């Protein structure tokens, strides 16, 4: 008995993709394995770590807690879509580079997407707000010190 497949139209980083996937295919897997946008990482698949965070219609969401079929018609932004149109690093990315906000880089895409949306909502966070902005993402390498600095630096760079 083969599994029913669904046609899904995903708009990712401005491009439209047509997919045929089983209903159970997680959005994270569809992005990584079907669209080969492997910048979105998977660290827990139960919603806690935040490595898989992408923007869905501009708001950060866990792609491991969504099915690709449920994202039909939504605008998805992944880390691959955060650079400037000319290919240079976007402000949050630039701030991470300057502040040494990453080590192994595995958690980084989730932080970048989360902060991008966070600064859109609050472009001039206080120190406390900068910490709060990244409080739902786990990083095992950096001890977060430089990630918080990067949020503040990105705000300065004006995202």
């Amino acid at each position: 008995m083969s599994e029913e497949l669904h046609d899904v139209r995903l708009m990712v980083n401005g491009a439209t993709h047509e997919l045929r996937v089983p209903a159970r295919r997680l959005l994270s897997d569809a992005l990584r394995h079907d669209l080969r946008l492997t910048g979105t990482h998977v660290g827990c698949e139960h919603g806690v770590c935040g490595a898989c965070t992408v923007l869905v219609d501009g708001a950060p969401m866990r792609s491991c807690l969504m099915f690709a079929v449920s994202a039909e018609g939504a605008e998805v932004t992944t880390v691959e879509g955060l650079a400037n149109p000319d290919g240079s690093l976007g402000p949050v990315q630039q701030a991470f580079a300057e502040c040494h906000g990453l080590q192994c880089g595995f958690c980084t895409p989730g932080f970048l997407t989360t902060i991008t949306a966070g600064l859109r909502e609050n472009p001039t966070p206080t120190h406390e707000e900068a910490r709060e902005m990244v409080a739902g993402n786990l990083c095992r390498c950096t001890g977060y010190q430089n990630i918080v600095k990067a949020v503040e630096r990105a705000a300065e760079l004006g995202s």
Partner: protein
Amino acid sequence: MTTKLMGQAVQRVEDQRFLRGLGRYVDDVAVEQDVLHAAVLRSPHAHARILDIDVSEVLDVEGVHAVYTYDDLASCTPQMAEPLPLLIPHPSLTHGRTQHALAKDEVNYVGEAIAFVVADDRYVAEDAVGRIRVDYELLPPVVGVEAARAAAVLVHDDVPGNVAARMEQSVGDAPAAIAAAPHRLALDLTVERSACMPMEGRGTVARWDPDLNRLQVWTSTQSSTGVRAAVAVKMGLDLGQVDVITPDVGGGFGVKINHPWPEELLVPMAARALGRTVKFTEDRREHFISSAHERGQVQHIEVGFDDDGRLHGLDVEFWHDHGAFIPYGLIVPIITSTQLLGPYKPQSYRVRFESLYTNTVMVTPYRGAGRPQGCYAMERTMDAIADYLGKDRAEVRAVNFIQPDEFPFDQGLVFQDGRELEYDSGDYPAMLEKTKALVGWDEFPAFRAEMAAEGRQVGIGLACYVEGTGVGPYEGAHVHIETNGKVKVATGLTTQGQGHATVFAQLVADELGCSFEDVEVVTGDTRRMPYAVGTFASRAAVMSGSAIHLAAKRAKEKVLRIAAEALEADEKDLQIVDGVVSVKGSPGTSIDLGTVSVLSNPLRYAFDEKSKAATQFSIGDPGKPPVAEDDEPGLEGKDFYSPERATFASGMHAVIVETDPETAEITILKYAVVHDCGHLINPMIVEGQIHGGVAQGVGGALYERMAYDESGQLLNASFMDFLMPYVTEVPDGIDIDHLETPSPLNPLGIKGAGEAGVIPSAAVFAAAVEDAERGRLPDFTIRAMPISPSELFHLRESQGQEQTS
């Protein structure tokens, strides 16, 4: 001269890829549709005999390609059915046991691999795993040190007492010295398990190429050469038929140094058998129950000392819970037993340990690798002595320090690498002064009083450690200057976020005089550097850094020799700046590195302008062979670094905490680190390592633990319940100061920095929380870590009753 990059906070080159989402981690390799995916059936029981495995329902599942159990392994090679290697044998390890790639007859921990399914995708593979039926006969499990020692039940029938190893080392006669000392104390301590928990789990991809008759393996490891050798042996291949490539690795912290994991053999086995690329990506739940843990120990300490707190004798006995198998040998307990001594002279010392089997996930090194437990034992002892004598805790430490003029200082023990435990350099008194200043040690009593006036209770703790880093046997490096002037560097050990591509490029640019941007570093690819050991024990900068420095030096010697000839100058008069060799004082007379590379390789065929200049007709002396007898074509340098022994980094941490009198919540108010890793290559990266270590230390001391129940089930195998710190749980700001006592053992004067941040955490938090509680309960003591608010509450209750009764 261009400014030296050594010591500069150079921005990381690897970040450009990572920040764009262009990192290549193992699950990002081979994302094409026809790759097959594996899933593993794991034991749900901690201890059971396998009576029968029925896979008949599995092969009907559409999309399943193969299912393997133990009985299928021998069809690959006979050695595939043998137990996995015991990587580090030791004379004391009399009863070493390792698991099979798939369980044979018996399972010994929840999570042990029993069957391996390969299917079109991971979803289908998991469906199939769910249809395998296993009949078990349940056996009673052994959980925890106490049960292991009692040995009422054996983990392995042929290991009496559950003891894999007993080991003892001593200097002088500690029991006699203790008996004769003016004062004596005894302490019983425990530390619970935690785990490395990198954000990326394990993963392996393999492709068998029938045209080339060779195997290509990508794996998320800390030792690609180790995996290569193990895979070759198990698959019955020549080493030369196996390539192991370590792609980007999403954190290791020790767990990926153990190898081969069952899947690192099963994936290649299936890939060859099926003629398809096969991928295994460990999920988070699997990582909890089938990778490795660390830290769990029970310790008994006896100490004798004088009125100043000076140690006369130290006698330590501890029991190390290494889980169901011991593939990584005795490294962790040996490190505990030796590094326990820290910056101190114990006068006489005896240490004995037993490494014990339990029916739990096995234990292999986690960042710090036994040092946190050793530091905890020693520093709790120092605090107990100070408390007993009514002395300042810093003072008691200071009287026991090895003094700066006593280096090299031989502790008289044998270290984990089989070499003598001889400290190369350090300045502990200066470090203590810096630490006290940084945390405000002398001002603390006033702060405590101020807080007490507001009804708040605060405490301060201090802990010191010494860390043997950069152990051998060796690392190597290869430096190749291409004809376009680009410099390609390869070293064999692997990278998990330490910024090797940056720091190694700094070293090469400094030595070679090329521009930093022209250097490209590759790590962990056996095709580029087949001789290597691995990334552990804070050894990458020391070992590969030194090797790269030496290899660059060799390349430079050749550059100068060829350039001197071309420029008709004396080598001694040449300089290399920004990739151009010129005669000092006459900048017009110059040649760039790319052209030197062209000249280094006489050609028969020309294919571009540059190579035209290098054909036999245009270079060299027609009277001599194109390549001199003692020379080789090409502009390369290769060298290895193999030190006599480890180099010893050191550090001190101090923390101020607040404990809530009502809820027993623990808040960190200030965290200070003074650190000595010799010369710094890139201070930004070193500080990043410290930040990360401190955060893991906070986790290990206050949040994380492996909660096993008595049946051997891990109750918190998820990120919901295994409480890794978020930003909100780590200190807001970590004050760091450096001391640089260079190592005399390596050309750069560096020491390792990777693990340091995590070593003193259990010790320093135990001290600070205890100190805070003593405001109300003067005899309050902490003897078990980690500590949660719930446990602190119960300690208050029990010790409060004792102290009022």
